[in-house]
């Protein structure tokens, strides 16, 4: 529910939003403000998780597996690259629906979802390799904090893939008209956020020794 349109339209006062949206006090749609608020909250979620990881970095008692034993930087760099490229395709998807090009929208949505899914698959593979090398959730502080932090991120990516797939199937059934470009934009915001978090995690967790 938003402010009634009639009085404000007549006076041309409240900010105009994109077509299809009622005028709001800020000019941004409710959904977009909500998404930004939610992402603000998510920053603290990942902030706390990353802090815990850093707090426990190097604190595991000796003679257990350390990050240097298991990390495969080239492999993770490739999967990070895949995830970053998905941000590019997300932008292309949004640009497509804003132009009204629904065929390309679907192409880029699907590409983004597949890139995201490959990242998750890569993470699952990485986890299985680590477990084979003897690092589990209970092995030491490193195991606990590594799996929970990256697992949380992986869960976020999975959720994003689900949303992208939903958008794709809606579009296939003709239920994503050009006026709903903002829905794609909102999923895009979430997707870019998850990517940015990965840049931070990749740098702090994998790259900095």
């Amino acid at each position, binding site marked *: *529910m*938003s*402010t*009634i*349109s*009639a*009085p*404000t*339209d*007549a*006076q041309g*006062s*409240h900010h105009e939003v994109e077509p*299809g*949206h*009622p*005028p*709001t*006090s*800020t000019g*941004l*749609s*409710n*959904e977009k*403000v*909500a998404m930004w*608020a*939610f992402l*603000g*909250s*998510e920053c*603290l*979620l990942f*902030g*706390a*998780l990353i802090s*815990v990881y850093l*707090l*426990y970095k190097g*604190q*595991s*008692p000796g003679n257990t597996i350390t990050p240097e034993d298991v990390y495969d930087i080239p492999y993770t760099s490739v999967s990070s690259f895949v995830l970053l490229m998905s941000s590019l395709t997300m932008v292309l998807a949004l640009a497509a629906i804003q132009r009204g090009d629904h065929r390309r929208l679907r192409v880029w949505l699907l590409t983004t979802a597949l890139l995201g899914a490959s990242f998750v698959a890569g993470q699952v593979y990485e986890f299985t390799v680590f477990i084979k090398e003897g690092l589990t*959730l*209970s092995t*030491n*502080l490193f*195991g*606990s*904090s590594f*799996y*929970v932090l990256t697992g*949380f991120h992986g869960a976020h990516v999975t959720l994003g893939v*689900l949303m992208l797939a*939903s958008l794709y199937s809606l579009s296939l059934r003709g239920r994503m008209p050009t006026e*709903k470009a903002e*829905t794609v934009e*909102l999923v895009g915001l979430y997707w870019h956020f998850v990517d940015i978090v990965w840049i931070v995690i990749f740098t702090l967790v994998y790259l900095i020794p």
Partner: protein
Amino acid sequence: MAIVTSPPPSPAELPPPPGSARPAPVRLLRRPTHPTGLWSWITTVDHKKIGIMYSAAAFIFFLIGGIEALLLRVQLGSPDNTFLSADAYNQVFTMHGTTMIFLVVMPLSAGLANYLLPIMVGARDVAFPRLNAFGFWVFLVGGLFMYSSFLLGGAPNGGWFGYAPLTRNMPGHNIDYWIFGLQILGIASLTGAVNLIVTVINMRAPGMSLFRMPVFVWMSLIAQFLLLFALPVITVALFLLMFDRQFGANFFNAQEGADPLLWQHLFWLFGHPEVYILILPAMGVVSEILPVFSRKPLFGYQVMVISGIAIGFIGWGVWAHHMFVSGLGPVATSAFSASTMFIAVPTGVKIFNWLATMWKGKIRITAPFLFAVGFVTMFTIGGLSGVTHAVVPSDTQQTDTYYIVAHFHYVLFGGSMFGLFGGAFFWWPKFTGRMLSDRLGKMQFWLMLIGFNMTFGPFHILGLQGMPRRIYTYPEDMGWDFWNMVATVGSFLIAVSVLVFMWNVWKSRKSPQVGNDPWDARTLEWSIPSPPPEYNFAEIPLVTARDDLWHRKYEEDQEGRPVPRTRPESEERAAVGRAVEAATGGEAGLRGPDATSSVVTETAAGRAEAAGRAEAEEGDGVDATAGSHAEAGDEGTHHDEHGGHDGHDEHGGHDEHIHMPSPSYWPLVAAMGLAVVCYGVMYKFLPVAILGGLWIVGSLYAWALEPATAPDEPEPEPSTSTDLEPVGSGTGSAG
């Protein structure tokens, strides 16, 4: 649901016969459409009904938490008591604290905010009505989930703060119920916070600039921001503990080198903002009550708001004062000691502003006023003992004694609960259309005040005598017997005062109907009928001043005293067009006198209210002056801004559609799935957990694909529903 309202007649026209007052909703939907009865509440997305459900559920939890408190007091009333076993005592004090904080004060504040925030900013509902319903059901599911532990093997018993590593290794599922219950409640609060933030930021009526918002809106907004940023921190802490307990992680396993202070840091980084989440809405309530009953504007509005914001920021930098005895080192303790003293400054500013609001006011001593004054005094005592905690050597003596228990009860009961009771008395006529008895309210106040001070005052002494917290009994020769007995008697006085309140509520069914504005109040919610119609405002108001309603009712004479407006508002119509532009353009210079907001009430309803008002004035507690100026809403004339849009709507007689969001089953269904997942994970029964997960995902899809507002059926006059279509369309496709 589409509702048809009659546009009001011109002022000259007499109200139509009562029969035409409110045409029945014109259509039935395949979606839930129960206008009344149980299902209308279960499927509702109306912020007012949700607010009432929050408050009602929280009140029931308040009774449960209160009974738990009485159990504790009976046990401690005499030395060497065996009324409760140590184990039962641990469960009861843990659930008492958890209940009062997460299931009483937070949802009561959420209920008030839900009900009032949209109305106070001039909106018809919150930004995401279904998400709002979801938040309530998740809260209820979380509360019931946690309480189901009593039946399923024992309630949480690790204290409301659940310190790990202790809670990591406690056997049984007690702590698991606490962990999962709080996770569920966190989801409820997070959705509520996002929703209310968007509502206040984005859905203010034209002219309602940020610094025209009522202080209650401001304080609730700040509390919602604190929730938004504090909840993820406790979520992480609870997740880590869950991984430790369920899947053998090591986050709190000191043997593996885990930091034993990690939990305390994470918990209090959430926990201290949480304190302000609990107190800020009550501060807002008091800031609404005092001006009305002092008949003066709030003293220092801007300073009040800015102090609230300052508290919101500084509240993030004081958490380690809960940990002064944990060995943080002199630098950290000094820094947190200084920040803790510093946060007393904006709090003190507020107290002085409330005093200055009352100073030289025409004070009407009513029940809400008494509760507000009770808040100010009791909160001041709690604040002063709080400052003693900022002094590290003093705090070292007080930590984990009853002195701390005294402090936070003065702040949370003497503060939050007194404020919320004041709010209940103040807004009861708005919520129900009927007054609570002022006589009983005053009786309750004095009983509660005396009982409260008898209970928690002696805790200061006991604490300074060295009585530790969380002990289930104590030997006879400690010198603690007398004051413990006094406290126990006092706690039963509080219980009596709560019974008086319940009696008052029960009796109010028969009290006379009141009009829009029984208190002669200042803010927008009093410009619409009591109880408000589903759509709140038949016409979205145009706000031209802080305390807009007051300026619609009064102007100032030469000496600056308020005098009732004499010019009928209709004569000022001409100014409105100019006012719209000026007001929405943010021109501060234009004040109420020349620009009237258009608020329209259904005329027949208005007439009934006028009659009710006459009765109400005879009823107890309503100031005789209150009713006489309460007409603003009733005589509000039709603002014809949309004359340009829909020619058919120029003269009364045609119907105007207000599209309200439609009821939905999905918020409830989705919320229930959360409990299923939690039971599944807790008892390591994977199929149940997976079922719960699919349940949630499925209902979220059903929800997302269901339009927020069900499409209209064909109308005899199709044009009517299209002209105003943006009203409902933005109701939150994500809602």
